[in-house]
């Protein structure tokens, strides 16, 4: 299981774009939390699936101009 953390502007359009890509990934979205912080949304996902597919998702998400930051890693306590 991997963690993907994203920052987007606080806009449901941006969030909608993130979800539109995620639903096409060949991974299972085990959990997703959207937290609001100042003018931003922080999206935390737990995804389960083959390494290459997780990478596919991260790379595709990172193509969105609204994804201001993205990082991927092990599930940790900061989630």
């Amino acid at each position, binding site marked *: 299981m991997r963690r993907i953390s994203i920052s987007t502007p606080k806009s449901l*359009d941006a969030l*909608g774009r993130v979800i*539109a890509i995620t639903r096409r990934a060949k991974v299972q979205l085990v959990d997703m939390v959207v937290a609001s912080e100042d003018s931003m949304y922080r999206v935390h996902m737990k995804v389960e699936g083959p390494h290459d597919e997780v990478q596919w998702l991260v790379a595709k998400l*990172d*193509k969105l*101009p609204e*994804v*201001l930051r993205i990082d991927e890693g092990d599930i940790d306590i900061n989630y």
Partner: protein
Amino acid sequence: MLFNVGGSFGAHTRDSKRVVDKLAETFKTYGVKHVLGIPGGSIMSLYDALYGQDIDVVLFRHEQGAIHAAEGYARVAGRPVVVAATSGPGAANLVTGLADAYMDSTPLVAITGQVATNIFGRDGFQETDIPGIVTPITKFVYQVRRPAEATAAFKAAYEISVLGRPGPTLIDLPRDIQLNAAPDYEERIQINKEKFIPPPPDPEKLRLAAKHLVEANRPVILVGGGVIWSGATPEVLELSKTLYAPIVSTLPGKAAVPHDFPLYMGPAGMHGRAEADAALANADVILAVGTRFSDRTWGRFKELQDAVRSGRVKLIHVDIDQSEIGKNVKPTVGIVGDAKEALRKLIDFLDVVPKANQKYLGWLQEIRKRYEEAMAKIADSTPSFHPWKALKALRRAAPRDTITVTGVGSHQMWTEIAWDVYEPGTYITSAGLGTMGFCVPAALGAKLAARDKPVLCIDGDGSFQMTMNNLALVRDYDLPIVVAIFDNRALQLVKQWQIYLYQRRIIATEFSQRPDFLKIAEAYDIDAVKPETYEQLESAVARALRNNEPLIVDLTINSEIDIVLPWVKPGDWLTSAVLPEGMDVKLVYEEN
């Protein structure tokens, strides 16, 4: 507030600038010379702001026409043009073109009108959630919610469309916002544009790539559409000459390489050339540049994946878009960067000069010769026009710098195989989405971008009928294009599949004799011919292109003989391409 939100359509008052006036000014500062589209209630104010401005408004007959024209324009001019459509049906009519531009990485900026913000979600007249609809098929989409965002959103959309890997963008502009008084400040749009600026290519990876390439026995360079956007044709040719590596292309990449370059084998794939399929399938080192590993080019990936995994084949993939590296096939070396920059540096790393594998190159040339001989024989024994031979006649008629655009279907596949491109960027086709109806409007857009160049649209009768309404623009805006309709009265490519994959159960692929294309031409005040010989075809087209006159050619083709080969059937590997009769060659190379 000057205008009644949601209610008034607000005629222009001269004493203050509206958001749309500011937008029109911004268009000019961004060098936008044309706005293509059709107006309507929700976008009238933007059109109103263009009144009397130094920007040409080009009125299409269908929004799909406007957006394909924007694609043709961008591929010729190398920069985007603006398409403006009204909300609801106008916006929805852009969808196919946006998807097409997204698949073929074409920059353009669409601006759609939207109902006023105070009636959002109330299903008002012509309300459609266009940002929701186009989310997966645009590089960037933004719905403007505050007047101060409008110009910033346009600037972002324009810049993002061209930065890095190009693509279409869309701005949705509610009617009340358009009519608002323009604020004297601009609100920042929170986005990360910098990510689209390609990183410098990794020198260590380039060094490794160079090592694999000089050690190769049967190298090949696979060129995709990215090479055109990057302007990397000189580097590709230099690499090919230095490494004695044959060049193979994808369908969009076909426009990147002059076809009289001796080591260019042509496009590979479903309807590629046999020598190109062979060069890809038998390579031991593949340098793939600016390509997304489409199933149309490879048939299937299994053989390649296995060969790369086992180390039998070294795959080097250079692409500006990180997400393409390893998406379909995991490369031996993946290099993110601009093609021109990466290849230039790669050339510097080639320290050893390899020897030409003459025997192998000779084998590939022999396949080419055998194909040409087999096709000449078939075409010569065909009583009516044969598409393969008709393309040779058209090529003789068209000056070297002719911009050629195609529809989608068998005629397009014939051009993939048999149309020679001489100057980079002069072949424009809908490759990724395969959109029938692309040709006429994209050719009009190409002509708009380069009025001094001859433009030839090679279309199918089915594709032509989807967007022929836009022919009105030929006279309206003096856009003299030549349209050659390969008129087989069929949706031939689908019919070919029915013949070979569905036991000849022909359904819904044969047309009646309606309409008469000569009468269609007449209705649009365009000359037309129905040639009876190749000579008539050649001379009519040569004359029209030379004199910059529009012409419609109704080229009668017997559907029964119109079978495009080679053909790698869907899901097959390249070496199992079905070859034309009389071409008895194997596409698997044997060393001895």
